[in-house]
């Protein structure tokens, strides 16, 4: 879809990889989740630290300004937790924090390699400027490679994880399976384009979520179009559009795996 920026990287081995950039929506979503998790963690830290401080101040009241020292240490630890959260996760999970994992995006280097601790640290250190003054958001929205200050300095980009075509799990009826074995003789399946096959598969995968009225209309329409596309003259009796599409899907799959 032309709505999402695609970018082509050249790896050190001169291989070209194409990715889709994450986009401001996904990145805002990810950073929101990250800040929520971070706030909860830091709140717990401050509560624990507060309880501890009271105990320490009471037992060491001969030491000068111990309260101030404890506060200073707490602020420093706060900063380390803030930076450390992002660095830790981006290194351990190869470019993903919990928020990025949920939004299905990932940080990688400009040449396609995984981020190491240097990039992660640089990005995290520039984050306070990027996030509080919204400079990062502006740079992401306006830039061609959607780099915020941290990305520019560290030489990284943030991409969407590609859709993994995993095992599809829609039910296929017996009737369709039977028909699928007969179809190659009855029609010319090679006239079906891969794009059409993809459309049929998407329909079969998603039909459960559709309203029944729309589903029957769509399946009928697709079935008619497929039928004329593959030159099928006679349809067997009592065939629903859904079963027909399942059969075509199976037959095409079998044909392309054997040929």
């Amino acid at each position, binding site marked *: *879809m032309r*709505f*999402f920026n695609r970018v082509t990287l050249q790896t050190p081995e001169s291989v070209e990889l194409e990715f*889709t950039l*994450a*986009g*401001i*929506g*996904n*990145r*805002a*979503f*990810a950073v*929101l989740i990250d800040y929520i998790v971070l706030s909860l963690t830091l709140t717990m830290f401050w509560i624990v630290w507060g309880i501890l401080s009271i105990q320490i101040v009471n037992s060491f009241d001969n030491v000068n300004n111990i309260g101030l020292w404890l506060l200073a240490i707490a602020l420093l630890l706060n900063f380390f937790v803030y930076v450390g959260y992002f660095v830790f996760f981006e290194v351990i999970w190869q470019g993903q924090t919990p928020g990025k994992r949920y*939004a*299905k*995006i990932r940080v990688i280097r400009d040449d396609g390699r995984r981020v190491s601790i240097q990039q992660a640290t640089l990005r995290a250190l520039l984050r306070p400027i990027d996030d509080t003054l*919204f400079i990062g*958001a*502006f740079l992401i*929205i306006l830039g061609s490679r959607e780099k915020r200050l941290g990305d520019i300095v560290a030489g990284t980009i943030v991409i*969407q994880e590609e*859709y993994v075509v995993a095992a599809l799990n829609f039910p296929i009826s017996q009737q369709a399976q039977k028909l699928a074995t007969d179809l190659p003789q009855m029609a010319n399946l090679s006239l079906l*384009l*891969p*794009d*059409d096959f*993809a*459309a049929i598969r*998407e*329909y079969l995968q*998603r*039909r459960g*979520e*559709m*309203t029944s009225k*729309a*589903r029957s209309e*769509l399946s009928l*329409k*697709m079935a008619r*179009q497929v039928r004329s*596309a593959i030159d099928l003259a006679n349809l067997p009796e009592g065939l629903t559009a859904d079963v027909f599409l399942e059969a075509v899907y199976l037959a095409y799959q079998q044909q392309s795996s054997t040929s």
Partner: protein
Amino acid sequence: MSQSSIRPLSIGNVVSAGLVLYRSNLKTYLQLAITAYLWILLPIYGWAKYSAINGLISRLAFAELINKPESVSTARDRIDSRLWSFLGVGFGVGIRLFGLYLLLYFGLILCLIPFFALGGQAAGGLIAAIAFLVVLVVGIIAIVRFYSRRFVAEIPLAVEEGIASGSDSIRRSSELTKDYVGRIQYIVVVAFVVTLPIQIVTGYIPSIFQIRTEPNSTAYWTVYFISLGLSLLGGAIIMPFWQAIKAVIYYDLRSRREGLDLQLGDRRF
């Protein structure tokens, strides 16, 4: 081969797509939005015009999404023929929302009854407090859910041929958003975060200046009018973004529930 043209959008992608739509038609949408915010100063007729322009922007955005872009004048003709229905959508949703608020208000008052019935004793107070909290939380969730389901209420009116009245549009949008409420809420939150910089500059900072001046001095009124102008400007800048997001949500709903993207992919078909 990229198959992203026939797949439902994720939450972040809805927001990104809305922004891309806005950016690529910045001048058109912004002009329309500024016109809308000038109309809003005129009662009744102006409000109808304001609602209609909202629908117009969404219609233009949706037309781009399905790769059949429309010119502003064509779209405007279609929209203007249903001018008062747009106001009707706004009122329809608004009145129902108001009714829900009233219900919540009465429910909260009912909660206070045990406290008084038991003559102000602690037990009555405790029951009242718990009931109050429960009713408040349930009420807020119900209202947020209600509004989320009607978030795209005016879009069917703007886009579909067969829908001509406000209540038809509301009904159609409720039907489409049945299992989608959670997603809409996430999308609204993320989109709001994206608009934060502009909101802060044009909305919240002027209010801060407002607080620091004394009422009824000339400084107060100049600050007041400047901040009013700024927040109107901010509203005009942000409005097309929200309308584009609604169009993308509507497109995504049609794709998931009715396979709209599968029908559009009929290149050779």
